[in-house]
């Protein structure tokens, strides 16, 4: 395994096999179509949030710790707007616009004010998440119209409708942009060597600013899915998403320092993380343990980047 990216993907594939093997040995009944469907169902939100996270990290802009807070606050603000009299037909647009704005706030803090991305988005994580709780006193906000629910709960061709209509196009577009367009080359170039990217005239700051907006937009889309799924806005819906999305991005083979990786691996890693959680749920293991396992995976992903593997010789 000369290429570190291939090494990460090998680790990912191994983890997938190990997970399936363990679950099958413990409880063979776990391998059923309905299980796969529910994994996809639970994956959508994390997949969208993880995509924004992946693009930011690829571009070297740093990470976005506030994604969970953005999802929670967007869900709450959208439903509060509806309760305040905004037509329910505007819910999809509202969620996207609010998410975009929250993401652009991160962009202003990190790009324009030059704050460290980790610290700035840690701040907005508490601000957004705290605001969502404070505005609602921790209660859910109801009022999602009935017409939105089938999209959040139904399936098309055996695939959850929201997965088919949001995750798949979003990942296809992102993969195409990265592989086929100059913008994709620029994102990888600036992630590897910011100075060189600036010297050849790539608008590094502007692109990263836009990517923070994209991360917000995708968080807004995730919030919309949560509304259509649960039928109400929950102030804690985005809890732990920053940790899970970061784990998925790194397990998916994206280098934490930027410049290396792709979005296909990220989607596979999202399915791994969610599959693991769903499997543990199926085995009646408490959700606290699920989070611990995600933490372990995160450390494993970082180690795979660092460890001097005996057979890995530099070219």
């Amino acid at each position, binding site marked *: 395994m000369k290429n570190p990216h291939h090494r990460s993907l090998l680790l990912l594939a191994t983890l997938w096999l190990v997970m399936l093997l363990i679950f099958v040995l413990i409880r063979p009944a776990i391998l059923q179509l309905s299980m796969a469907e529910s994994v996809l169902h639970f994956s959508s939100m994390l997949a969208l949030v993880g995509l924004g996270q992946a693009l930011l990290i690829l571009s070297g802009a740093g990470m976005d710790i506030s994604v969970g807070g953005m999802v929670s606050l967007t869900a709450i603000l959208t439903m509060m707007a509806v309760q305040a009299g905004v037509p329910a037909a505007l819910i999809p647009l509202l969620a996207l616009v609010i998410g975009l704005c929250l993401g652009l706030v991160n962009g202003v803090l990190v790009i324009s004010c030059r704050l460290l991305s980790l610290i700035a988005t840690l701040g907005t994580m508490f601000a957004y998440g705290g605001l969502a709780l404070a505005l609602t006193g921790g209660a859910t906000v109801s009022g999602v119209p009935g017409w939105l629910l089938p999209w959040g709960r139904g399936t098309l061709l055996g695939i959850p409708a929201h997965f088919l209509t949001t995750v798949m196009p979003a990942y296809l577009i992102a993969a195409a942009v990265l592989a*086929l*367009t*100059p913008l994709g*080359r*620029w994102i*990888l*170039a600036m*992630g*590897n*060597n910011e*100075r*060189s*990217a600036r*010297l*050849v*005239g*790539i608008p590094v700051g502007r692109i990263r600013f836009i990517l923070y907006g994209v991360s917000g937009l995708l968080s807004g889309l995730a919030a919309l899915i949560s509304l259509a799924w649960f039928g109400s806005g929950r102030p804690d819906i985005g809890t732990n998403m920053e940790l899970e999305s970061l784990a998925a991005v790194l397990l998916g083979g994206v280098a934490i320092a930027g*410049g*290396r990786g792709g979005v296909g691996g990220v989607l596979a890693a999202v399915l791994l993380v969610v599959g693991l959680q769903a499997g543990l749920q199926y085995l009646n293991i408490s959700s606290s343990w699920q989070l611990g396992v995600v933490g372990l995976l995160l450390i494993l992903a970082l180690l795979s980047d660092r460890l001097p593997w005996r057979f890995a010789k*530099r*070219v």
Partner: protein
Amino acid sequence: MDKADPFIRARGIGKHFGGVTALADVDMDIREGEVLALLGDNGAGKSTFVKVLAGAHQQNEGVLEVAGRSVVFASPQDAAGSGIATIFQELALSDNLTVTENIFLGRELTTKVAGFPILRRAEMRRRAIALLQELEAHIPDPDRPVAGLSGGQRQAVAICRALNINARLVIMDEPTAALAVAETRKVLTLVRRLAERGCAVVLISHNIADVMAVADRMIVFRRGRKIAETTRPDTHAEELVSFITGAHPSLRVLEQAH
């Protein structure tokens, strides 16, 4: 433009940083097809002058003419637009991208598909191979990341990038500083080839042997001023060193005048 006219004509260039004079009253002509070496001790002003040429600094005084037109560059992109390319000491390549991708970085060839710019990989690869062959740079595979290349090969990639934007002046800052002997020879060959191709080349170097091997003309800076200009047939290594250190007899008068 007459063939005898220089590509760059600089007159009375001065640059201050606060109260410090980094550059004072520098005149210089830079001609196409010629390798011009800029020499001088650290802080002598050669780097500042080159940064004015490259658009990284703006002069406070003096006139800079490119191909007969007076210019002030606001940015390196401005300078690139006038046909001036700078190859920086750290080379500024993206290690994770391939040779071809680095040559075309920021200036990718695209074709519109449904309104979106799509990379023309095959065409870029073809042109990259042609450029590498023209320079006789021995890079076996343009699809490999530049991370695995030697220092000399990386120089070749950076030169190809300059050629690709049709640069008429290529500025090279210490191109041989970190190279092994064999690699240095290759890069010096590349420098000559650039000049033979009709490019003007400005070379900054501390290595007198390199300069004597490759430069047609030498200009020595000292304390922000141009103190000597000579050509290869008219000078020798010892004289250049004495200019740089200020030991040359002709400088005694000058030093007292300022």
